């Protein structure tokens, strides 16, 4: 029993890294989603092309392939990346590309009358976006963003393959040391699921709070 607690501690150390990767990855993904999603609807052709290239490029391959590329190839080009940075980059850029499409879809789903009302009130394009469109669009984005965040959490497991000591990596260590397979893998499956539940509950609470006072029919 004492021994199991020691191994559990090892896995929990990994859980901390998994959560760090998830939080930082989500922050980068959120940023990229808005930048690329809004750029995709820009009136400047060059911005639209750049955003589309980014989105299709990162959605065309998996986090795993991108992570390996970032980890093995970027240092050759003289860009030193630690495994942790490579992980955050691959996770954030990949999920951000999916998020960009969510941002675009949500902004385009807002009734045209809203934009026209903004025009009639003489708001600048930025003011229209900031005060009229986005507050309504964010509520539409949230449920899908929640799913994307869970996909990102699941994606973090691949960093164990570039020797970053996350939860999956630690469970392999425990497996190698104890020869037991069920205990480490079942433990981390439950932990991943628990983190996923926290994400989906948080997003649902946020959704309720943000849709207060908005005319959103659900």
């Amino acid at each position: 029993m004492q021994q199991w607690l020691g191994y559990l501690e090892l896995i929990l150390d990994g859980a901390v890294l998994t959560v760090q990767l998830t939080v930082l990855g989500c922050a980068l993904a959120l940023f990229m989603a808005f930048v690329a999603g809004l750029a995709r609807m820009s009136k400047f052709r060059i911005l639209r092309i750049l955003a589309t290239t980014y989105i299709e490029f990162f959605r065309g391959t998996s986090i795993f392939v991108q992570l390996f590329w970032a980890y093995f190839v970027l240092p050759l080009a003289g860009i030193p990346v630690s495994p942790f940075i490579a992980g955050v980059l691959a996770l954030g850029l990949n999920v951000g590309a999916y998020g960009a499409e969510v941002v675009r879809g949500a902004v385009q789903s807002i009734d045209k009358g809203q934009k026209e009302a903004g025009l009639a009130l003489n708001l600048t394009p930025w003011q229209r976006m900031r005060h009229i469109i986005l507050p309504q669009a964010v509520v539409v984005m949230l449920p899908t963003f929640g799913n994307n965040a869970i996909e990102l959490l699941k994606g973090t497991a691949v960093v164990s393959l570039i020797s970053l000591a996350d939860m999956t990596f630690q469970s392999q260590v425990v497996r190698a040391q104890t020869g037991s397979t069920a205990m480490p893998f079942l433990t981390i499956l439950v932990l991943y699921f628990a983190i996923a539940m926290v994400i989906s509950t948080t997003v649902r609470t946020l959704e309720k709070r943000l849709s207060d006072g908005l005319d959103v029919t659900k």
Partner: protein
Amino acid sequence: MEWDWQFVIESLPTLWQGVVVTIQATALGSVLALTVGLFLAIMCRSPNWFISQCSKWFIEFVRGTPLLVQLYFLFYILPDVGILLSPLVAGVIGLGLHYGTYTAEVYRAGIDNIPKGQWEAAKAVNLTKSQTWKEIIIPQAIPPMIPALANYIIAMFKETPLLSAITVLELMNQARSLSNFHYRYLEPMTMVGVFFLLISIPSVIFLRRLEQRYARPHH
């Protein structure tokens, strides 16, 4: 580091072997995912409370945990209970179960989207339960599902590199062994990326066509 075309050409046959395994895994995995999803969707609709709750929680759980860990689970734990699977079979089962929980949702939504009036009309003209499913519900439910199902098959294809973690010699694994052997990472890793882009970008275009073709007509 310079791009070495000679090395690229020399490594093509090895990478091709990996491509074949990648395609096999995707094809078998899709068949399994489409079947598993259908069963899960039917079990979710079961009148038996226990069965429907169990399948709902199974779907939630599998969707909330990483495919990589599920693969480890299948690959390392099943032999302990006496089931020996080859890496490829374990990988295909992992892919099939994981994406089966996604296709289950597509089936569920597709069936739920059939207006209630269709069920009532079938009842009114005295169709049996199996006739209702076969003649009324399924023919209407399937077409709108096709783009969503295709989307998940493409997603599964992109995730096949994970099988390399359980020693399946698919494309990513071949590229890694080439890299480690020749100590050149640039070409093999880039070629894996290019291969996936070459398949998945045309697939996205194909998917948009499917969506247009099977889009629900607006009433």
